[in-house]
């Protein structure tokens, strides 16, 4: 009787434990599946953005243009050189309307490539050159089979005439697919085939630099005071509670603060990494303070006692022992805080960093935008190519953030000590 009872209880317990295990494993699998779906869908839709279609044009400069070039390359009318060279490849296209259509196969920035070619190869001025220039975004999508050429003409953004010109180019082997390095070397543009992320990447780096040099020292020193020096009383309790609250404040509130204080009151430059960095530093501060305090609190008291025991002063105990031992934890917290700031858009909205800015910033007071802001703006653009560019930009931002987190893990592994 008792034996039977024990056995039933035992089996029941085993079943319950098995169920519990299955629940938790399936939760994990579900989470991983969602994450994998998200990342793979972004990765797949970003593939077209990493290649670009180029069209080869026969370019030959006449004597006048060579003279102009030797005087000053800016004197050459590059646009008309591009048009004339391209039209001469299609002698049967005659009307103004058809020529215009033909020219639309090329990117509006195609002449820049021609100019670049001659600046790089001045010895080829008198030659017949084949110069590859970016195709327009519609051609790009058609060649990549994203626009269906079998659709009726009025349902696609590229006309039958244009397709026939393209077919001629294809049969002449003048279409070339290359990796779109311009994603990293160009800054933002209204033309998808010219748009790149350099402005956003540099803007993000400058902003993160400002964020780091402000939030790290202030955060660490404040945490040292609160954890090691401050007396434990009501006042420090209130500060502690409020720091924890600040970590949970919606990020746009920091943007409003930046707008009210830094732009309107202190007249700092609008749209600048300086202000963006300060705002994000304020947002990151509580994260760094909490991480630093946790890291220092985890140092065993025996180490402090040992140091005090040989007559170290409080500063020596902190500087020689507590801080170095807590450093891996502090760095991890800081990098995770900074990575969170790097993915932030809302606070930057309020201080004008969510803007179309073509120039690459070179200092922290220049006008700039950041990667997440650029992603948001690209997602709003009507051209279909921006859909793929947006995915590519998200992927690049994710890679940067993952690398930052990896750095945090490596630093922790490297400096971690046991006691």
């Amino acid at each position, binding site marked *: 009787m008792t034996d039977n009872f024990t056995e039933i209880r035992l089996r029941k317990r085993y079943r319950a434990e098995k169920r519990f295990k299955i629940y938790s494993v399936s939760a994990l699998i579900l989470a991983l599946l969602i994450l994998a779906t998200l990342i793979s869908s972004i990765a797949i839709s970003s593939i077209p953005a990493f290649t670009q279609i180029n069209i080869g044009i026969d370019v030959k400069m006449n004597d006048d243009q060579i003279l102009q070039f030797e005087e000053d390359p800016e004197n050459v009318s590059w646009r008309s050189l591009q048009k004339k060279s391209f039209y001469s490849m299609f002698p049967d296209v005659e009307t103004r309307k058809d020529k215009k259509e033909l020219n639309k196969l090329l990117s509006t920035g195609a002449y820049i490539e021609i100019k670049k070619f001659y600046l790089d190869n001045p010895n080829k001025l008198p030659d017949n050159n084949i110069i590859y220039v970016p195709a327009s975004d519609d051609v790009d999508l058609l060649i990549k089979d994203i626009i269906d050429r079998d659709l009726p003409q009025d349902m696609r953004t590229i006309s039958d005439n244009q397709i026939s010109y393209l077919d001629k180019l294809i049969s002449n082997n003048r279409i070339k697919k290359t990796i779109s390095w311009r994603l990293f070397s160009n800054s933002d543009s209204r033309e998808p085939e010219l748009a790149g992320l350099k402005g956003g990447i540099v803007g993000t780096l400058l902003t993160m630099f400002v964020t780091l040099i402000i939030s790290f020292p202030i955060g660490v020193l404040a945490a040292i005071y609160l954890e090691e020096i401050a007396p434990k009383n009501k006042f420090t309790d209130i500060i502690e509670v409020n720091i924890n609250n600040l970590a949970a404040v919606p990020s746009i509130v920091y943007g409003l603060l930046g707008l009210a204080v830094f732009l309107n009151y202190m007249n700092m430059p609008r749209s600048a990494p300086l202000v963006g960095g300060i705002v994000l530093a304020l947002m990151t501060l509580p994260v760094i303070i909490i991480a630093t305090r946790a890291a220092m609190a985890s140092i065993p008291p*025996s*180490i402090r006692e040992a140091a005090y025991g040989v007559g170290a002063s409080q500063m020596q105990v902190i500087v020689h022992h507590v801080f170095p031992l807590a450093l891996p934890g502090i760095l991890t917290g800081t990098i995770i805080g900074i990575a969170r700031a790097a993915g932030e858009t809302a606070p930057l909205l309020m201080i004008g960093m969510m803007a179309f800015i073509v120039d690459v910033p070179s200092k922290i007071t220049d006008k700039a935008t950041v990667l997440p802001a650029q992603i948001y703006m690209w997602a709003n653009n009507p051209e279909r190519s921006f859909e793929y560019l947006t995915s590519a930009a998200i992927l690049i931002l994710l890679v940067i953030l993952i690398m930052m987190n990896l750095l945090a893990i490596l630093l922790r592994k490297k400096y971690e000590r046991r006691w």
Partner: protein
Amino acid sequence: MIPNQYKITTSNVNVDYGNKRALHDINLQIEEKEVTALIGPSGCGKSTFIRCLNRMNDLIEGCKVEGKIMIDEVDINSPDTDIVELRARIGMVFQKPNPFPKSIYDNVAYGPRIHGLAKSNEDLDNIVTKSLKRAGLWNEVEDRLDASGLSLSGGQQQRLCIARAIAVNPDILLMDEPCSALDPIATAVIEELINELKERYTIVIVTHSMQQAARLSEKTAYFHLGKMIEYDITSNIFTNPKHEMTEAYISGRIG
């Protein structure tokens, strides 16, 4: 002022943790270059008392020490006393070996470095060598001074901590149950060491082991529930206790 032949004199020392009184009116005189053992059941305040002697209790939030503690005729609780210099003069060894997560050399050299005791690297080498020799660890570590202090065994770590404490040239050594985390062999080594060290240092040792107190100390104080019950020459305490509570403890009826 009446000249005082004692190294440490405490009068009416009371310690409070918040509202709870941990020590009541402790009056104790400790002689120079002797081993004084503090025994008693857990929670009786012997560790609290030893931590008063180098003001380690200052580090504990809400701990208040009253009364007078004179070391070499100086009141260590007076505002003029510099706590850093006080702790440099009074070495401390803790219950659990707690070497810094640094090399063996740096563990011993840390104290002399922060107090500026060595004028050159050679000086420092000499201090480290001398301290490790006095702590009886030199022969075991002389060829691996760069190894981490944490790579040593428990007993070796505790001797490293003793070397670290004596490297700053203290004249008093406080030992808070230095053998409680060690095996019997390591304990025997440390006890032997303490016997050698008492030629140079005044030693106050807290211990749970009555045999250890009997083997090592000249004087023994028995603490119970925050009060000092009896303080006498060790042999008297163990063979002829005056107080019945002391007798109960050493015969194993309290503990």
